[in-house]
């Protein structure tokens, strides 16, 4: 491993810069070693990963170092953060090689190609199968179900102000009920005993009964959480994941990557963006980051599909709308639900 002593790896201003691609990303980024090794083999560029905390922090860091970035490539911008990055003008256009194979709906900057879509994920309510089986209750499927008194005191969600799944879930309700209706819906949720905690870790690890220690069988998480739970659940593989997904509550996130303005190694950066859309990488993603590939035809591992859910019609929202409404919604939501 690194002994901490040779750390100047950004490639900035260093003669060796040409060889290293530096990628700034969030805590959840993961890639298999062999896949990364193949990139190096093929392009001659080694990859250096920097992690800047959660996605929001990462984007803000990039915005603050506009023009003099720490890295060449940023990976992990999602649709809630996209317009901040675009507006700040920190990205250099690049049309990645595999982009043709990516459906239009994910190409949210199709005009300029400042960002390249890489993966999608869905924020949905998860449920504890065993709990509902024991209770003889059908798991909820839709937003409406969650407000049904039958599911009273069962749901735990994250603070939309501080947690990105929390925000995604709120955006989903806004998308579903519209500007005029979402507040009424949340009032009903509140009356139905929704519990708000601050972060995903706490909601999922401590309160959700499906993950072990908790007391609530419904939690806002990702559509891919059930397969992740199985893959990291131990050696045996059950027939069915112990947790399920309420597919009618999903809000879609698309994650993008982009070349940073002022990159020391733009060449390598472009190569890396191209690499992100290769089948190699796209097929590695599901079991590393538990997200869906965006490239059509990329094969998804069996474990991922067996234990995961297919979300048919996720809710979406345009990045500009998100930027325009988000603070207002969060504030209103906070006074409605939290205080």
């Amino acid at each position, binding site marked *: 491993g690194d002994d901490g002593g040779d750390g100047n790896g950004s490639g900035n201003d260093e003669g060796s810069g040409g060889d290293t691609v530096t990628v700034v990303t969030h805590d959840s980024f993961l890639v298999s070693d062999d896949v990364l090794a193949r990139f190096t083999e093929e392009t001659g560029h080694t990859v250096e990963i920097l992690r800047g905390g959660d996605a929001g922090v990462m984007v803000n860091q990039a*915005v603050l170092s506009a023009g003099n970035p720490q890295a060449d490539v940023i990976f992990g911008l999602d649709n809630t953060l996209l317009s901040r990055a675009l507006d700040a003008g920190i990205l250099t256009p690049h049309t990645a090689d595999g982009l043709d194979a990516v459906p239009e709906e994910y190409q949210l900057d199709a005009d300029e190609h400042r960002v390249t879509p890489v993966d999608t994920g869905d924020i949905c309510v998860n449920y504890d199968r065993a709990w509902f089986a024991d209770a003889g209750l059908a798991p909820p499927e839709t937003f409406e179900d969650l407000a049904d008194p039958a599911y009273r005191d069962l749901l735990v969600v994250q603070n939309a102000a501080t947690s990105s799944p929390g925000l995604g879930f709120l955006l989903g309700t806004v998308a579903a009920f519209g500007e005029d209706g979402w507040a009424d819906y949340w009032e009903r949720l509140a009356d139905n005993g929704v519990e708000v905690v601050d972060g995903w870790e706490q909601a999922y690890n401590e309160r959700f009964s499906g993950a072990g220690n908790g007391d609530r069988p419904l939690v806002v998480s990702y559509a891919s959480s059930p397969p992740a739970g199985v893959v990291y659940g131990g050696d045996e593989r059950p027939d069915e994941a112990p947790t399920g997904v309420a597919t009618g509550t999903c809000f879609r996130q698309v994650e993008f990557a982009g070349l940073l303005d002022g990159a020391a190694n733009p060449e390598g950066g472009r190569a890396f963006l191209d690499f992100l859309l290769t089948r190699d990488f796209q097929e590695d993603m599901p079991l590393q980051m538990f997200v869906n590939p965006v490239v059509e035809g990329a094969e998804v591992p069996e474990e991922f599909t067996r234990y995961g859910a297919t979300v048919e019609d996720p809710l979406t929202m345009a990045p500009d709308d998100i930027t325009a409404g988000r603070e207002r919604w969060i504030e209103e939501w906070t006074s409605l639900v939290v205080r």
Partner: protein
Amino acid sequence: MRRGGRRGVAVRLALLAVPLAFFALFFAYPVAAITGRGLRADGAWQLSRALDVLTAPGIGDVLWFTLWQAAASTALTLALGLPGAYVFARLDFPGKRLLHAVVTVPFVLPTVVTGAAFLALLGRGGLLDERWGIRLDDGVWAILLAHAFFNYAVVVRTVGGLWAQLDPRQEEAARVLGAGRFAAWRRVTLPALAPSVAAAGLLVFLFTFTSFGVIQILGGPRYATLEVEIYRRTAQLLDLPTAAVLTLLQLALVAALLGAHALITRRAESALALTDPAGNAARPRGGAQWALLGGTLAVIALLLLLPLAVLVERSLSVDGGYGLAHYRALAGTESGTFVVAPWEAIGTSLRYAAVATAIALAVGGLAAAALTRRAARFTRGFDALLMLPLGTSAVTVGFGFLIALDEPPLDLRSSWILVPLAQALVGVPFVVRVLLPVLRAVDERLREAAAVLGASPLRAWREVDLPLVRRALLVAAGFAFAVSLGEFGATVFIARADAPTLPVAVARLLGRAGELNYGQAMALSTVLMLVCALTLLALESLRPAAWRGGRGGRGEWVV
């Protein structure tokens, strides 16, 4: 007493040069850069913006909550910790050294992990809930208790360190004048300890004033401190103007607090009769001492050991039974969460912590040496300045680093040294606050005695001050080390992906679904505890050779 005149001032300034440069470069400049960026738009200062933020609805509530929970947490921690300080300073009991190291363990635990333990004990379905139906997780009690959990060691070690060296005959003098045990303590020992109690109180207050994780996890979304608001504004919304105003507000409050602290201690500090601590501790005698010992052990068991035990229990629980699977999993990288094996995070953490401790000791030690004499006004101001990083949010500093230290020769953004530097920023105040009360208690005439025996000021410092502050120095080093080992807020911004520290690795594990990840997070937290406890134990058994000789045959009788 006057001494040394101009030469003394020159020496002090020279000593201060390093801390001053450190502080300016790694705190003042980055923080000024980030707040400056927030407060300026289109080349003009946006002062009306400040007014808007300060008069916004809700900000008063946040401020009020921030202040009172910090005050209450400090009071609770002092109330629990002072008897503990006494017990560790004056009583001998088996396992004392181990326990002294163990009480510091909470200090290094990531708040998410601690939060989990507290929820398990105090929350729904927790121990209290099952037995008596009491839940403390939705009130402010959980926050206060968790703050006490974290900072118990600050009081016990800071105050206890000085207490152990106080001449017990001062209290005896009060007793023969008719003062009862408690009265003698309150009227004689407490005033002597006051600077050190104030230092501990100040540190605890600053920590809890800027508390973040504990409030979020245990207080839920209802409770927000200024720190939470600053974090949200900066990290989530990139609303730098608001964040800048809040940062300045926080700094102003901290500065006011530091002013008050300086006032209190300036009147209270005086040369004290310090003794070799070895002779001052004895086996407990009498009901009161046994009661204090029992009470302290109970507090440690319930407040500190129980939550820690919960974590250990969870790290061992595998599929409804117990086993070491999570620990074994830590050794391999097959889980894929890391580019390196989690075990290597231990090495990284230890290296960073060692460097950060060295920086903190050097910078803080020089500052404390320069501030030992309270003569000049400028040194007082500097004393307070050094405390400011504790009262500043980690995001502010982290983002400040990012925009301030981004050009050669100071493009340190992706250099590993930035991590220990940021950690040392928190360690330095500890070193200064722990050392100063003791250094200022050292009787000037002892240094004079060394001088007339031919020792130069430097030699006198080494031979007189150093041995007397040795204990405080170890306490300070322990804190600097623990701070660095446990620091998360700033580290997570700047730690490299391939070299995560233990808390960062724990956070990454917790951020993913799956029992194995959770179990590994608990296992790694347990490892973190062990690393902390073992290092502190090793640190405290450091004893210069000259010390071992002269200690034989003492300690078995009572003064």
